[in-house]
């Protein structure tokens, strides 16, 4: 088990508070340490935790506000308009105005809704999105907890939003919401599998599930060594986030707002918040696992490197949103099951062979692996493009009457002779 004192953040705050004079604390902490009076030393640990967590969550909420602004500005630029620019310099205060407005809107709860589930759903959505940050290393020595199953925790917690979406739609008792929830569950569980298997190549190279150990193992960023894993993980996590082009769950031109249709006021705000918090968290995970985490060159602090890489990933995510139209649900499911799943299996076997050839690889050997992996990546992408490409799209090829797929048949048609 890693030592919690490895985290400079933890050691600094804990040693400022604790007066027991732990061996690890010698010479650390503000004011020489020991701020807590005798008899209250047991408070040092919970207080440390609370202080760091409060700082982290405030950082996340600030980051979410920045991202709302950044995404709107960037999307504006992509579409040849200015984006929000009235309130504050460059429109920077727009999300704050939005937050205040959202908070004081009328809270409409439909009469047919299940009030308890209806209220619980946004909380169930936001809490897991925040929990991912607990194990995210945002710089050398800057993390809250470093557990040796961190990646497993992220996957488990990240998958919890399926439950929240289902709870939201069941709670609001809306039929659009039910359609949305069924689509979302089908899509999220389908993309869960490539998402999980695509990380296996990284696990073979790093030999650990701890994010800190994975970042340490990256003498060269893993997206160079594992292009196929990186590609699949990026696409699958975009789907897990319900973002365009995978936003069939809240397709506003088909099913209003999906599972959020009947939500208003702060409950809607929480959904919005959790979506952005999860996006930032995912970009953090991608940074830590594939982009070398906090590594960079020296005069610039490691935390800055991490945030810069995160912002780069977020920019790419927004760019994808601006570039692609929404995919049809059958395209999405085909892509998950027929393309991504097999690509992950190829990646698994190839990575296994490479690690067999070079166990505990040095930097030079990592470069050899990267070369072979890139060849495999490009060849397999080309082959899958040929096999599953637009020519084989069942609608375009005319094998299926186009109306059947295009009209959304989530529910079977009620026979003309009468319904149920």
């Amino acid at each position: 088990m890693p030592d919690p004192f490895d985290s400079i953040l933890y050691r600094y705050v804990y040693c400022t508070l604790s007066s027991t004079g732990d061996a690890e604390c010698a010479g650390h902490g503000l004011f020489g340490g020991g701020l807590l009076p005798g008899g209250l030393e047991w408070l040092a640990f919970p207080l440390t935790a609370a202080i760091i967590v409060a700082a982290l969550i405030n950082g996340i909420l600030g980051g979410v506000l920045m991202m709302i602004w950044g995404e709107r500005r960037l999307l504006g630029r992509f579409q040849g308009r200015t984006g929000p620019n009235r309130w504050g310099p460059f429109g920077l205060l727009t999300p704050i105005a939005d937050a205040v407005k959202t908070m004081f809107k009328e809270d409409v709860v439909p009469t047919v809704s299940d009030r308890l589930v209806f209220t619980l759903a946004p909380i169930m959505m936001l809490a897991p999105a925040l929990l991912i940050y607990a194990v995210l290393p945002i710089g050398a020595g800057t993390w809250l907890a470093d557990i040796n199953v961190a990646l497993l925790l992220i996957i488990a917690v990240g998958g919890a939003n399926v439950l929240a979406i289902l709870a939201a739609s069941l709670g609001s008792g809306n039929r659009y919401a039910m359609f949305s929830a069924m689509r979302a569950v089908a899509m999220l569980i389908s993309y869960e599998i490539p998402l999980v298997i695509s990380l296996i190549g990284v696990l073979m190279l790093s030999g650990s599930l701890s994010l800190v150990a994975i970042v340490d193992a990256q003498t060269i960023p893993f997206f160079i060594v594992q292009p196929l894993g990186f590609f699949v993980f990026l696409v699958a996590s975009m789907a897990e986030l319900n973002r365009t082009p995978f936003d069939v769950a809240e397709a506003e031109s088909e099913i209003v707002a999906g599972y959020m249709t009947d939500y208003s006021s702060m409950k809607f705000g929480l959904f919005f918040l959790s979506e952005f918090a999860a996006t930032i968290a995912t970009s953090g995970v991608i940074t830590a696992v594939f982009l070398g985490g906090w590594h960079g060159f020296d005069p610039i602090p490691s935390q800055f490197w991490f945030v810069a890489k995160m912002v780069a990933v977020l920019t790419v995510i927004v760019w994808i949103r601006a570039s692609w139209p929404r995919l049809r649900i059958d395209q999405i499911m085909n892509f998950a099951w027929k393309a991504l799943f097999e690509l992950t299996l190829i990646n698994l076997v190839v990575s296994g062979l490479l690690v067999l050839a070079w166990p505990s690889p040095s930097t030079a050997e990592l470069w050899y692996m990267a070369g072979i992996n890139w060849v495999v990546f490009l060849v397999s992408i080309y082959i899958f493009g040929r096999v599953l490409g637009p020519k084989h799209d069942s609608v375009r090829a005319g094998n299926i009457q186009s109306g059947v797929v295009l009209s959304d048949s989530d529910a079977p048609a009620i026979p003309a002779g009468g319904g149920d």
Partner: protein
Amino acid sequence: MGEDYFRQYGLIAVFLLIAVSVPIGMLMLSRVGTIVCMRPTRPTPTEPEPEPSDRTINPEEVKRRSQMVKLATYESGMRAVGSRWTRFNFRYYYFALLFVVFDVETIFLYPWAVRYGVLSETFGWVVLAEVVVFLAVVTLGYVYAWRKKALEWV
């Protein structure tokens, strides 16, 4: 060693506690807005004129009805017909079954992948071969599902 374990997971437990209380706190704050009259509680924007047949109903009833429309679930502005319990296509069930199969597969793969580097140094190619056999068995089921058109979303 044990102390470290509880410290790390204690930190995560505190994080979870605060992560749950943050959204609850936000909902409470928004509720405070109602108490200090910063947030509309349940206004009826314009009381609709009662239909000719309803002229005899008292104003309270008119107000109640207009709120009923507002508090109905949203369905394109029309009154919702039927309940939320609609029928769904069976294909959702297919994918749920497939998910269970392959998600269990990933659970077996993870511990193997983490120890793979160490194990392959001692046992060589056998470690990879075992998992390839395991994958082949699961992939056989996958190919069967594909052939049976269980992966088609139509």
